[in-house]
Structures are given as structure tokens and as C-alpha cells.
């Protein structure tokens, strides 16, 4: 009885992915304990977030991909409505309009779009023939550009970047022509200066400081300088858990959220960093295997996009903390403190598991 219940629970759980995720999240809890100044409440609250996110992952894993496919369009429309709502009625906090009050709760529609956009695009491309025309891609790009533009306007550079990349991955995996890609790259090169003028001052500043953080060592460059000092002073073996001076002594800003990797890198050193990178590689690799084995276009595009978006999270966050990418508000997945992004992430992994474990039901 218990056995049967147990097997029911894990029926749609991919054990390899699950194991890697759980291990990474456990590491996250340890780092959080250190980064928060040994704040047990903070750790427990994050553990609770993880529990909730895992529950949502389980639910997602148990929903067959064909049901998800049907949800794609309504979800996207709902997300767009909410985004427009934010645009007009959103609540401003920290200079950005990201939140929306819907009677009983406060939601952040951009988080929903992280899943809704790749789902919609995967659905859109899976309904076409195998010969995709340029116009299909143009429509796909438009479906992507609208929510990205709204989110960028909030402004939330980090999230819009992640959503843009998740949509781009779908377009790319669906067979966007190389010639077009190269053409776009050239176009982007031309458009970059125009884009530059559209950025907010603080965003522009962040990019400028990226190239020379010492330009403003006590201001915008401070994050980067302190984070690189933390990482660099960690050396090969690190200073040891709870012994990072940079992090323990309050030099690192946002050290439980966006900059938590600096704490990790300081305390666990080069070895720890490479191990964590290996963990992420395992998760991404597993995601790619799932995508590669997926049985229909929707599943494989969605699985591929989710996996690569996860990679984008990791690369952008670690890149910014180690000073090779601009500081944009992207958390380190599975490690950074915060419930919202964790829920979205694990929802994505739930979908991956669903795709993987519902395979046999699709074909005979």
C-alpha cells in the first residue's frame, strides 16, 4: 500500500534531475545560512519556499504535455492581460512597476511569462508544418517581443532578458535559418547604439561600470569590486564555510540574493566553484537529454527552452558576480534567496519531468 503510494508519488519524477536539483538546493541552504549571517529563520523560510516550489514541480510533472499544450495560449493571454494591468495599475517599489494587486494577493506577472512565453512559442511552432517559413518566425518573434517590451518598460532588465532568451531558444531550436541569424546579429550590431539610448540611466551606468568598475568604486562599481574581491580572495580551496570575511563582514551587498555566488566562491574557492558549475552542467545536460528524447515538437522545444533558460540564469548571474557581464538583476537559480523565481524554476523542471515521464503514453 505504502509502496504503491510511494511509486505513485515518484511516477513522474525524474530521479537524476531530482537528485541534482535537491543537492544543489541543499548547497543553496548552506550558503544562505552563511550569507545571511547565520540567520536560521532565513534558511527555514527558504526551505519552505523550496517545499512549495517542489510541490508545484510535482503537480507540473503530473500534468501530461498535451494538457500543457492546450494551456499555452490561455496562459499567454492571461499573462499579457496582467502585464498590461501592471503597466497601468502596477505598484511601484524600488523605482520599478512590477507588482499587481489582484484582490487577495500581489503577483508579479513577469514571472508567469517566463513559462508562458516559451510554452506559447513551442505551441505555435509545433502547430506549423516541418517547413517553417520566415513569416512563422516573424510572428513568433512578435509574440515574444510584446511581453519583453512591457517587462523592459517596468523596468526589469534581468527578467526581460531571461524571457527574451527563452523565446529566442524556441525560435532557434525550431529551425531559425542560420542566414537570418547572422543577418540579425549584424542588425543587432547596428542597432546597439540606438538601443543604448533607450536604456535607463542606471542601466547604462551599470554597463559602463562593467568595463571599468573602478570608475565609481563607492557607487555603481561597488558591487562588482566587492564581489570580485570576495571571489579572488577565496583562492583555490576557499576560506571555509562561514569564514568568508567579505561576506561575513557586510562588504558584499545583496549577498543573500543576486550576489550569493560571491559568498559561495569566497568560502569554497575555485574547487567549490567548479563543483557547482559541474552540478549545473549535470542539470543542463539532463535537460538536454530530455529535450533530445522528447517525442513531439512542442515537448522538445519547450524542454530545450526551459533547459537553456536555466543555463542563461546561471551564466548571467555568475558572469555578473565574477565581473564579466553587466550587473542585471538575475538571481543564481536554486541558490539565491527568494520564493518567486524558485517556483518558476521548479515549475519548469516539473514540465521537463512531465515531458520525460509521459513519453510512453504518447507513442505505442
Amino acid at each position, binding site marked *: 500500500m505504502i509502496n504503491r503510494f510511494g511509486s505513485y508519488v515518484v511516477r513522474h519524477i525524474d530521479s537524476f534531475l531530482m537528485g541534482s536539483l535537491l543537492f544543489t538546493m541543499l548547497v543553496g541552504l548552506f550558503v544562505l545560512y552563511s550569507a545571511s549571517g547565520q540567520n536560521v529563520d532565513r534558511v527555514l523560510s527558504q526551505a519552505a519556499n523550496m517545499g512549495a516550489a517542489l510541490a508545484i514541480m510535482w503537480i507540473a510533472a503530473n500534468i501530461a504535455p498535451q494538457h500543457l499544450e492546450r494551456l499555452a495560449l490561455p496562459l499567454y493571454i492571461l499573462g499579457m492581460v496582467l502585464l498590461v494591468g501592471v503597466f497601468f495599475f502596477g505598484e511601484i517599489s524600488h523605482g520599478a512597476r512590477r507588482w499587481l494587486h489582484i484582490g487577495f494577493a500581489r503577483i508579479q506577472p513577469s514571472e508567469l511569462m517566463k513559462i508562458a512565453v516559451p510554452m506559447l512559442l513551442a505551441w505555435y511552432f509545433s502547430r506549423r508544418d*516541418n517547413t517553417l517559413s520566415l513569416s512563422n518566425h516573424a510572428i513568433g518573434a512578435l509574440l515574444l517581443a510584446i511581453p519583453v517590451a512591457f517587462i523592459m518598460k517596468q523596468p526589469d532588465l534581468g527578467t526581460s532578458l531571461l524571457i527574451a532568451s527563452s523565446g529566442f*531558444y524556441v525560435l*532557434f*531550436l525550431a*529551425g531559425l535559418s542560420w542566414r537570418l541569424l547572422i543577418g540579425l546579429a549584424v542588425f543587432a550590431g547596428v542597432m546597439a547604439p540606438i538601443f543604448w539610448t533607450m536604456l535607463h540611466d542606471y542601466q547604462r551606468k551599470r554597463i559602463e561600470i562593467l568595463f571599468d568598475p573602478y570608475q565609481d568604486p563607492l557607487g555603481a562599481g561597488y558591487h562588482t569590486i*566587492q564581489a*570580485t*574581491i*570576495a*571571489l*579572488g*580572495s*577565496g*583562492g*583555490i580551496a576557499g576560506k571555509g564555510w562561514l569564514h568568508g*570575511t*567579505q561576506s561575513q*563582514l*557586510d*562588504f*558584499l*551587498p545583496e549577498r543573500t540574493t543576486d550576489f550569493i555566488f560571491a559568498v559561495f*566562491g569566497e568560502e569554497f*574557492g*575555485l574547487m567549490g*566553484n*567548479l563543483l557547482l*558549475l559541474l552540478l*549545473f*552542467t549535470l542539470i*543542463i*545536460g539532463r535537460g*538536454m537529454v530530455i*529535450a*533530445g528524447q522528447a517525442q513531439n*515538437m512542442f515537448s*522538445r*522545444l519547450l524542454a*530545450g527552452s526551459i533547459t*537553456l533558460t536555466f*543555463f542563461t540564469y546561471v*551564466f548571467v548571474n*555568475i*558572469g555578473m558576480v*565574477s*565581473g*564579466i557581464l553587466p550587473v542585471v538583476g538575475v538571481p543564481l537559480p536554486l541558490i539565491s534567496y527568494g520564493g518567486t523565481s524558485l517556483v518558476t524554476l521548479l515549475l519548469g523542471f516539473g514540465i521537463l519531468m512531465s515531458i520525460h515521464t509521459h513519453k510512453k503514453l504518447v507513442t505505442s
Partner: protein
Amino acid sequence: MNYRSELRNYQLEQHNFRLRLAFMAVLVLVCFGILGSRFFFLQMLKYDYFQTLAENNRISLVPIVPNRGLILDRNGVILAHNFFAYTLEITPSKVKNVEDTINEISEFIEVSAADRKRFKKLRAQSHSFESVPIRTHLNEVEAARFAVNRYRFHGVEIRSRLFRHYPENNLGAHMLGYIGRINDRDLTALSEANELSNYKGSDHIGKSGLEQYYERQLHGTTGFQQVEIDADGHAVRVLSSTPPVPGDNLILSIDSKLQRIGEEAFGDHRGAMVAINPKNGEVLAYVSQPTFDPNLFVDGIDSESWKALNESIDKPLINRPMRGIYPPGSTFKPFVALAGLEAGKREPPFSISDPGYFMLPGSSHRYRDWKPGGHGQVDVQRAITVSCDTFFYGLALDMGIERLTSFVSHFGFGRKTDIDMKGEMSGLLPTPEWKWKRWKQRWFPGETVITGIGQGYTLVTPLQLAQATAILANKGVAMRPRLVSSIQDARNGVVTPNPAIVVDRVTLDPHHVEIVTQGMVNVTLPGGTAASIGAGSPYAIAAKTGTAQVIGIKQNEKYNESKINERHLDHALFIAYAPADDPTIAIAVIVENGRHGGSTAGPIARKIMDYYLLGKEPPPPAPAADAAVTNAPEPAHEEELHD
């Protein structure tokens, strides 16, 4: 067929997808490779560099300011001490808009216009990263009120600072001096003296008086704490600590009671009084009137108070005993008399018959005696007692200016006494050489004549006059005058005496000293110029009165007190030592525009001697008798007249 084509499409689709996925996998590995090599670069290649940065980040050397030494009088009465008080301070570089911040603070903590003015002034003098007090002496309620609102104010902090306080307020202000905020000039001086590191964390320094002269001893040695700090600069943990060495306490030879009696004895008069123990040079009282409250200067004086003090015609900020210069007048005569005796010129029974004036050979110009008609038959001793001008006119001429000045210079005229304060004036003992250098004019015999009665070019400070009197009282042995008698180590209470130093010694015939002393004792006896001063005294007082002209009186013009503006009235001088046979106190008093030495300056000296020798306290001071002349406006001041 249809099925097969779908199958082939499906396979092609999957194949294309996998190709693209593989491409992305390579991209992922490349990106992670970039991250990995970045880690390698930061954590291996640049490890030492970042390690050093992190250490510097983490450990900060925080200075611990030593307690400034106390200043105590000879009986242990505290004249300067320190207390802790809360200040509210703003670090301008950390605040976006200082003006707005102050306005916000003033919503719950009172910030007066004077506070704002002082802040503005101090801010202009400070670097932007230094915290500047906007309010001082916060009470507990105000401190708590700010603590609650602290989160709103980055760059605003409550600090507990050590404040200097002078509990006796005006008492001995010129001598004690005051401390003030370190300015650029102080910084330059400190850096030249290689003392800058000892002033990390200190924001005050002695600006005048003893606070300035003994700055090195009073300040102490700054300690250091190695602390771990967080990015906001807040100390998290102390790693090691070198405690500060507190500044030494100064124990003065001043008796604060005597000092107070001296100050009160002046009433509304301006002037100076110095009392010295002739045997060891200890200064017993050091009065400069009017005085001021040095506490005003500690937090940075507000402009109104500064204006009031600095622009007052009474010049309360001038340290008169050592910076006020006056003609010595007749108080110079005992020294001239001794010069004559030692030169073998006026040995008794030599005497003159005084017609009431002196004339140079071959000249009709009359150098008048203060007493029309003269004093009759006068020998050297009587000449002192009655202050006979005619006698000293002749004596000076007879001796010649060079011999006269070279002898009296042994009494410290014309040079600094080297008292333990900075900024002392050296007065003037004129010689033909000096006149030639200064004015490119030759010396006239008439100038020698008037030098004999302490007029002409000769100028003294009250301190010099007191020192000269002390040297006379000590029979030619000059002790260095000093205000600090010993220095006490604040840690263990060990007292190191500030030794008595003989600075000059002139061999005098005891018989000659006896003659002069007797002449001076007779001054305070019936028939002398200050007979009232000696009245009822159980000890013998050797004294000499003097008056010094503020403006020249024309030949044949009668000096009319009532006609002259109060500020043009003669200065009253008085020197004395007692007991005459074995003096333990020597005094010089100058009352500006006090007219007669015997009537205004003498009583002050008597009160001092009575308390010092008998422990007798004067009755509480009565309101000034001659209020009618005290308020006459006149901008001129001695220093301006004589400089």
C-alpha cells in the same frame, strides 16, 4: 506513403532539433569554460592581489584618542577637565543634500541658527569625509529620539565626544588658554613636527596659553585598535589594541584663590597683575583684565560672541601680562638707583638739592619733576621713597645710556622672560645702536635723561616688570618664571617637578641692595608715595609706584586729569615685594588709565600680599567708585600706541 513521409518528417525534425541542441550544448560548455577560466584567473592568478584587498577591507586601524590631561592649581583645584557628551554629526560626503538633512533633523531635534552657523563654519574648515557636529551636548531624550530615526539618515551619527571644560570659566583664562578645532595651519605644524600620526582621531588642539604651550604633554599618545569592520565602517570585532597613553596633568604654581582675589581686585579696571615667588620663579597669580570665558572656544565660537570679544575696545582677548607693553614709569627708578650705586655714582652720603627740574648743560629745556618746587635735599634712598625725578634725570645722564641699559638688562628688561607660554613680547630697552637701526637717528642726551625715570622708549610687559621685581627681591638671582610647577603622569600619579632654573645672576653689593630696599620700604611708610598701602601691615613691604603717560604732555602744559578723556589718563603702575627682609612674593600691577600707582594699583598688590602672606581674604568687592569715567569711548589701545 503518407505515414512514411510523416515518419520521415518526424525523424528529420528530430534530427535537425538534435543538431541545434548539440550546437547549444557546445555553447553551454564554451560559456561555462569562460566562467571556469574567469575563476582560474581571479582565484589562482590574482589570488594574492585580492587576498590583500580583502585584508585591507577587513582590518582597519582605528585611533583611540587619549584623554587630555587636566590642569590643576597648586592646591588641586581643577581649572581644566574633560567630560563626555553626545554630539550629532554629519559626514558631508555621505549625505546627498546637507541642507535638507539638517532640516529633516530639526523636525525632531532642536537645531538653532547658531548651530547652523557653527556647522557651516566648521564644515568649511573640514574635509568632506570628516564628520562635523551639527549639535553638541545632546541630552538623553534627544539622543534617543535620533536613535529611533537613525535609519533615515545615512551619514548622520551620534558620537560621544570628549569635551574640554573650564569649570572656573573666566578665571585665569589668558593663562589657561583654550583648545579649538585643528585647522590647516595646525596640521602643517603637526606634520613638520612629525606629530601628525599622533593626532589621528583628535580634532582639538591647544590654541593659546598653557593649553598651547604644553600641548605635547596634555595631548598624550594616541592608541590604536585593529578592528574588523564591515563595509559601512562599523567595527565588528577588535583584533588587537594598543591603549592610548593619557595626557599628563599640569599642576600649576598658581593659587586659584589668589588668582580670583587678584581678578576681583581690579573691579571694572583694565590691566594686568603678575605675582611671582622670587625664590623659585613660580608664578602665583597671573591676571589679565578684562577676561573671557574659554569655554566659548571649545566647540568653535559663534560669530556674535567672537565679534563681541574681538571688537571690544577693552580688548579682552589680549594676554596683557605678556603681550601688553607699557612704559615702566617710576617703577624703573629702583633699578636705575641700583645701577648708580653699583657704578659708584650715588653712594651715600651723596645728595642733591632738587629745584623741581633738571636742565642739560648748555640747554634751557627743563625736565620737570612731578612735584613743582622739588623735594629739597634728596639722597638715593629718599629719591626712591619720594620718587624724585630730578635725581634720576641726573643719574641717568651721569651714567650714560649704554651703561645704564647694560646693567638693568640683568633684571630682564628688553628680553623675554621665557615663561611657559607662547607669544611673549620682549618689551624694549633702548640703546643708541637700537635707535640708529630702527630710526636712522642718533641718540640725544635728553633721551638718556628721561630713560632715568622710565619714560621715553623704554617699554615693559607687566610680566617683565614682575620678573625684574622678583630678581631685585632675590638679590640679583634671576629664576625663570613658570606657571607649571610640576607635571603629573595621569596613569600612576607620579609627579615630575618642573625644575627651578637660574637664568641670570648679577653680583650685587648687599649694602646697595639694602639701600634700595629700604628706599622702597619707605615708599609704603608715612612720607612715601604709597603710604596708604603699608598702613596696618604686619610685614614690611618694599614697593614703588609709577605712572606712565599715555599721551605726551606739551612743555609747560599743566596735566589736568578732569580734562582728559578716560582712555588718555595715565596708567597706574605698582611693584612690590614682601616681606622686605626675606621676600616670598614679588608683584607687578598695571591698571590702565588708573592714574596713580599708589591709589589704584597699590591696593590690588596689598590684597594679594595679605592673602598670600597672612591668608587674609579681602571683603567682597564694592561697586566701582569712579563709574563716571569708565564708559568714555576711546579706540586707542596701548599696543597700538606703542607697537
